[in-house]
C-alpha cells in the first residue's frame, strides 16, 4: 500500500487531480447543505451577472447557477460511476469467459464485441435513452451498453495470458471448479489493468452523459451540467456565465479523473512505462 502511494504521488498531475476530484466529491455531498432547497426554484431576478450574492449568476428563470452546479455534481458523478461499474461488470464477464474458454465461445463473443464497437455508439445511446424514456437509470444503462467492449477486450487478453500460467494449471490440477479459478486465481491478477481502464472510463461516461443531457435527454427531475448548458445555449450572447460555469465543472471533473487514472496506471502497472500507455 505504501509502495502504491509512493508511486502514485510521484506523479504531480495525479496528485492535483486527486485534490480537484476530492473537492468535486465534497461539492456533491455538501450540495443540499450549502444550497438548501430545490435547485430548480427561482431565487432572484433572471439573468443576473455573477456578483457577491450569486457568484455564478442566475439563469433565464432566476435560478441560482451555483446551486445547479453543486447539485449537478451529484447527478454527474452518480451516472459516471454507476455506468462504469455496469460496463466493467459486463465487460469483465464476457472477456473472462471468452479468454478462459477459448475456441468457439471466444470467437462468438469477440465477433459480438467487434460488432458493438462498429456501431456509432453515441447514436445508439441516444436511441436507447429516447426509447426507454429519459431518466437516470436509462442513461446509466445506455452508457453501459455502449462502453463495455474495450473492457471485454482487455479482460480477454489478460485472461488468455494468465490461463497459461503455472499457478492456474496448479489450481485446476487440485480440482478447483472453473468459476473459482476465474474469480479467485485469475481475476485478482488481471485487476490492476482493468481498474486503470475503468477509472479512465468514468471520464468518458461523464462526457457522454453531459452530451446526452445537453441534447435534452437528461432526467427531467434532476439538474445536470449538460442540461444547464443546453438550456443556456439560446442566450449565450447575453449571458456567458450560464454556459461557462457548468462547462468548466465538466472540464475540471473529466480532467481530474484522467489525471488520477494516469497516476493509477503508474502506480499499478509500474512495468509499463509512461510512453507505452495502453489504450
Amino acid at each position, binding site marked *: 500500500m505504501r509502495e502504491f502511494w509512493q508511486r502514485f504521488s510521484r506523479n504531480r498531475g495525479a496528485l492535483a487531480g486527486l485534490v480537484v476530484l476530492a473537492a468535486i466529491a465534497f461539492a456533491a455531498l455538501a450540495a443540499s447543505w450549502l444550497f438548501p432547497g430545490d435547485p430548480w426554484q427561482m431565487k432572484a431576478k433572471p439573468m443576473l451577472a455573477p456578483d457577491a450574492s450569486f457568484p455564478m449568476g442566475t439563469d433565464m428563470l432566476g435560478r441560482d447557477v451555483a446551486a445547479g452546479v453543486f447539485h449537478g455534481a451529484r447527478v454527474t458523478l452518480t451516472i459516471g460511476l454507476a455506468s462504469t461499474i455496469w460496463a466493467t461488470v459486463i465487460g469483465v464477464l464476457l472477456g473472462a469467459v471468452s479468454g478462459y474458454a477459448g475456441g468457439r465461445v471466444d470467437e462468438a463473443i469477440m465477433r459480438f464485441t467487434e460488432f458493438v464497437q462498429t456501431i*456509432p455508439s453515441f447514436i445508439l445511446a441516444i436511441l436507447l435513452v429516447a426509447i*426507454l424514456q429519459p431518466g437516470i437509470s436509462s442513461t446509466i444503462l445506455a452508457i453501459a451498453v455502449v462502453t463495455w467492449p474495450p473492457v471485454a477486450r482487455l479482460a480477454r487478453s489478460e485472461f488468455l495470458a494468465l490461463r497459461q500460467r503455472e499457478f492456474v494449471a496448479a489450481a485446476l490440477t487440485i480440482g478447483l471448479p472453473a468459476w473459482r479459478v476465474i474469480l479467485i486465481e485469475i481475476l485478482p491478477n488481471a485487476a490492476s489493468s482493468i481498474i486503470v481502464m475503468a477509472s479512465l472510463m468514468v471520464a468518458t461516461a461523464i462526457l457522454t452523459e453531459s452530451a446526452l443531457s445537453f441534447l435534452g435527454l437528461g432526467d427531467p427531475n434532476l439538474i445536470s451540467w449538460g442540461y444547464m*448548458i443546453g438550456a443556456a445555449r439560446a442566450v449565450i450572447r447575453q449571458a456567458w456565465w450560464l454556459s461557462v460555469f457548468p*462547462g468548466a465543472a465538466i472540464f475540471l471533473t473529466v*480532467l481530474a479523473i484522467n489525471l488520477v487514472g494516469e497516476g493509477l496506471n503508474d502506480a499499478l502497472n509500474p512495468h509499463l512505462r509512461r510512453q507505452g500507455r495502453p*489504450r
Partner: protein
Amino acid sequence: MGRLSRALIWIGKSLAVLVAIVVLNFCLIRLAPGDPATVLAGEAGASDPHVLAEIRQQYGLDRPLPEQLAIYLRAVVSLDLGFSYRNQRPVADMILERLPATLLLTGSAFLFALAIGIALGSAAARRVGRWVDSAISVAGLVFYAMPIFWIGLLFVLLFSVALGWLPPFGMRSMIPPEGAAARSLDVAAHLVLPALTLGLFYVAVYARLTRSSMLEVQHYDYIRTARAKGLPEGRIVRAHILRNALLPVITIAGIQAGQLVGGAIVVETVFAWPGIGRLAFDGLLQRDYNLLLGIFVICSVMVIFFNMLTDIALSIADPRIGAS
C-alpha cells in the same frame, strides 16, 4: 489471397454488420413501452387510427415476429427507411437531403484532426521532454477533457460574439453572395468553427498516439541501420519512423470513425449545421422514432465506409497487410 477475394470478404462482413444493425433496430422498436405501431408513428401519427392501421398493415404487425423481421429487413434493403408522419415525408428522402452537409463536416474534421494530430505528435516525439513536448501534451489533456459542445459554445463566444471573425451558425449566409467561388468561400467560412470543434478532441487523441508510437519505433534495429547508413535525419523520420508509426494511428482512427459521426450530432446542434445530426436533434425533440432509427442505419453505413477507407489507407502504408 487475391484482391478480389479480399474485397468479397469485406463486402460479406459489412453486409453482416448492416443486417445485425437492422435487427437491432427491430429489437429497439419492441423495447419501447407500448404498441410498436405507435412507436413507428411517432407522436404526430399516434393519435390517428388510420395511420396506426396502415402501419400495422405495412409492417405486418399482426403476424409472427420472424415474419415481421423479414418484412422490416426487406424494406430497409430496398432503401425504404419508413415514413416520418411528423414531417409527412419518407425518412430516406429527408436523410439523403442532409447527407452532403454531414459528410462535408465530418470529412473535413477528420482530415484536419489527422493532419494536425500527426504533425503535433511527431513534433512532440522528436523533442521528448522539452517544452514543445510538454506544451503539446498539456494541450492534449485539455482538449481531451472538454465536452465537445462546450468547446463549440466557447468558440462562438470568442470568434463570433467577441471578435466577429466567423459566422456563429448555419451553413450559408442569409443572402448568399453571387458567383460559385464566393458561395464556396461563404460555406467554408461557416465550416471553420464546427469542423474545428469536432476535430480538436481527435487532434488530442491522434497526437498522443503518434507520439507514443513514434517513440516505440525509434528504437528498432532498422532505424539504427538507417542511421548507420548515414541517411539524412529528415528522411529517416519521414520514410522509416513515421511511416511505420502511423499504422496504429490509422487503425485507431478507423475504429473511432463511429464516434466522429456521433460527435457530429452534438456539433451540428450547437452550430445549427443543416446535416443529419441536426435532423436527429429535431427528430429527438419530436420523438420521431422512425426518423431516428433511419439515421442510425445511415450513420452505421457511414462508419462502415470510413472503415473501408482506413483499410485502404493501411494497405497503402503497409503493403504487407494486403499480401497476407
